[in-house]
């Protein structure tokens, strides 16, 4: 008995030996064709791959893995791959949940983890420049050690890399104050598929034609590999205030936050949990059954933080809130990185996933209800819940969770896709964007053209101009779907 592969069936390495040798020459021998390595690089964290793993199925095997240590090595690798038309799949910490790092066509997995140097902290300009293979927590700990924070704290902080954040256009839990990765990144260096290197200036802004480098944000490895980035940093905040409130209905909590945003007040963390998720995350808090929990974490200058607290508190009370104090926020801070549901429920036959979306306030409430309904419409769904965790004066990000057991005679992947399809269709029909910060990968590929409309053709044209041989991360974002 041996494992099976889902997306590509080949098990033998097909990159010719002479190419492997060339790759070794340009990377100081940092190339592997070992089976154990090809097996571990066969997947990222797309939830259905967990179920496959238990069944002895791997998503797709790469032919080899390379670990460059600097930009010039990345450039040499891409030149070789481009000449030979071999797929290249960029790989950071592999925490993506849409399958964006799965080598569906085999080829070379280019792991950037060895590129994790922090080159500079510029205190006067509040900037740091670093290689993109750095792990999120290692970066944040380094900054904290020197009195700063990045303010980009995704739940995947411990298991994701800067390169992954840029590739998937990530957002962190503190994003309402500090912004998303596109607000945090100031400049970048990237290697194009032909090996050429582009680099932008580390200036606050410039009116010098289109910001071409910004094409790389959210490009999921389609245009090349981002090797360096310059990011904004902040002095570590002097004061933190933690506050929580419960409401009877989600509409009241949403209305409170909408009004707080209209006042131009941006608490670092704002999270609204629907009734099921309030029970899930705050089961120890008193009187939360059938309630909506709203938590705030405000940080920064003491006087400003107190002002933010006063304004938000008044607005919440006007909307029927009952104060719950600091405890629920402390509990959230303590447990926010406890990712255990996938380990607990996958072996019990549960199929689950999370779907993050973006919607304007005008449609927000109806959107929430329709999306919950769209999950429940699929037979076998047990859990259908949501929280809202990133806010703007214009709208909100809803983060939905579904979980269930496939009905008899329905393959887990078919069940999984049915829920996704129904949610994506509902999202587009209800004026939402199909992804707020996880990206497209494999799972959302077929919905991207509808989401983008006419822009999608332009995206494809740009892709074919930059990557005429289609070597960069093929089989993703619907660009060259063979099926």
């Amino acid at each position, binding site marked *: 008995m041996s494992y099976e592969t889902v997306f590509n069936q080949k098990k033998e390495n097909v990159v010719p030996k002479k190419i492997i040798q060339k790759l070794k020459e340009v990377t100081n021998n940092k190339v592997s064709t070992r089976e154990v390595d090809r097996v571990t690089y066969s997947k990222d964290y797309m939830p259905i791959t967990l179920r496959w793993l238990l069944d*002895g199925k791997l998503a797709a095997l790469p032919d080899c893995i390379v670990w460059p240590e600097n930009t010039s090595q990345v450039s040499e690798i891409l030149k070789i791959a481009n000449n030979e038309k071999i797929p290249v799949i960029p790989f950071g910490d592999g925490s993506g949940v849409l399958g964006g790092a799965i080598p569906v066509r085999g080829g070379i997995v280019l792991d950037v983890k060895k590129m994790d140097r922090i080159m500079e902290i510029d205190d006067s300009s509040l900037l740091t420049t670093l290689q993109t293979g750095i792990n999120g927590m290692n970066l944040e700990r380094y900054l904290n050690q020197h009195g700063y924070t990045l303010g980009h704290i995704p739940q995947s902080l411990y298991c994701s890399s800067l390169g992954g954040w840029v590739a998937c256009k990530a957002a962190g839990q503190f994003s309402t104050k500090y912004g998303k990765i596109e607000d945090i990144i100031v400049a970048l260096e990237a290697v194009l598929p032909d090996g050429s290197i582009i680099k932008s200036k580390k200036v606050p802004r410039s009116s010098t034609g289109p910001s071409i480098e910004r094409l790389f944000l959210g490009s999921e490895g389609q245009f090349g590999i981002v090797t360096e980035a310059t990011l904004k940093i902040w002095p570590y905040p002097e004061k933190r205030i933690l506050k929580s409130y419960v409401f009877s209905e989600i509409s009241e909590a949403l209305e409170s936050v909408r009004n707080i945003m209209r006042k131009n007040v941006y608490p670092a963390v704002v999270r609204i949990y629907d009734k099921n998720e309030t029970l899930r995350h705050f*089961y120890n808090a008193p009187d939360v059954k059938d309630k909506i929990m709203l938590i705030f974490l405000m940080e920064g200058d003491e006087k400003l933080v107190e002002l933010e607290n006063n304004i938000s508190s008044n607005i919440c009370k006007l909307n029927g809130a009952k104060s719950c104090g600091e405890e629920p926020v402390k509990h959230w801070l303590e447990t926010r990185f406890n990712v255990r549901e996938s380990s607990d429920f996958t*072996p019990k036959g549960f199929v689950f996933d999370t779907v993050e979306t973006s919607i304007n306030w005008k449609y927000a409430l109806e959107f929430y209800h329709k999306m919950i309904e769209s999950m429940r419409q699929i037979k076998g769904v047990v859990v259908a819940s949501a929280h809202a965790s990133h806010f703007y004066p214009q709208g909100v990000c809803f983060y939905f969770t579904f979980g269930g057991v496939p009905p008899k005679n329905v393959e887990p992947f078919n069940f999984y896709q049915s829920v996704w399809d129904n949610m994506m269709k509902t999202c587009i029909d209800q004026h939402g964007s199909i992804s707020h910060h996880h990206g497209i990968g494999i799972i959302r590929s077929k919905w991207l053209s509808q989401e983008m409309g006419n822009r999608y053709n332009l995206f494809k044209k740009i892709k074919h101009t930059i990557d005429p041989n289609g070597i960069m991360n093929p089989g993703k974002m619907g660009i060259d779907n063979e099926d």
Partner: protein
Amino acid sequence: MKISKKYAWVMDSLSRSPFSVKARAMKHFLSSKKEYRPKNRTDADIESIIKCSLCPNMCRFDCPVSEAEKNETLSPSGRSRIAYLFEMGFLVDEDVPDTLYSCCNCDACRQWCPFDFSLGDILIGVHRDLVKQNNLPKPVLELQDIIQKKHTLDGKSFNIAGKHKGDFLYFMGCTVMAEHESIAKAMTGIMDKKGENWAVLEDEWCCGAPLYNLGFNEDFVKIAEQNIQKIKETGCKTIICSCPTCAYMFKEIYPKFNLKINAKILHASEYLAELSDSLYNNSEKIEKNCVYHDPCTLVRKLGIAEQPRRVLNSIKGLTLKESYFHGKDTQCCGRGGSLGKTHPEISDKITKKRLKELKKYADCIITACPTCKSAFSDLGCEVCDLSELIYYGCKKDER
């Protein structure tokens, strides 16, 4: 069936589901224990391996092996995935055993694990299965061979002059016997100063930790039984270990095998912390900046962080610097879990990284583990065991 409050949200959702879905979900819940298990009986803790392998690697950033190699295969969940595929018979590959032995057993992962797992612990059962299959990397076999034949980790030992019966048994540990006679002299010298009725074993053997970790269960039990007998013969009431791993094995692992030691077990730092201040007051003033390196086993497995600091803070003239990564946030010296023997290249990378971090704070490193001392001093660093610092006052020429 008692359902934890933690899962009230699932029960709440289930209660709203149609009967057919409810029935199917309950069936999955109840039958899940039988699924995803190897066909043949194994020693592996497969339930923990599954949970670890399904995690997105939330501890990866703090795993010294993963950080040194930057290879998914050697990430904590990566190794668990390989272990699962191997145990289930899905993956048979010559590189599997080597992969599954590449752990420094430092427990850094436990700090971040919602299940309180340590990869080192959950791989022990897999190691036992590899031993049963005789599917072992060469360095592992060599290590087993040397401990079996010579009864110590390095095959080296020395006998320190002393009685073989007494109230306090000083247990040196393999690394002291092989490389740091000065630690043994310092410890026994301190006990002499204190006027203790101390003893050493006539022929000290390894505590058995490497055999236990590498999966040689039977060999471990044999050596442990021998140790129990020898310790009993000394009539000691307290055992003082220079090596945190020996103390941990005696305290926590021996009892799991019904091997009980009828004596109080102390790590040297605990003993030193209880000494009267007069011992330090009479010692020479040490004008020095030092940084204390918390050994993984001492701080994470035995929970000892305060005692060594109490000792250091009572030494006149000594300025104690703390690394950003101290206490339970310490970083492995690279030699934990026999990694120095089984994977010397990875081990060296980890040592260099830790040394670079410690050197930011002071040139002189103090530790309380002979293995950590070896790791750092082999790279030319000035490093002192806590006992040496007290006894010799950091004078190199007397050591």
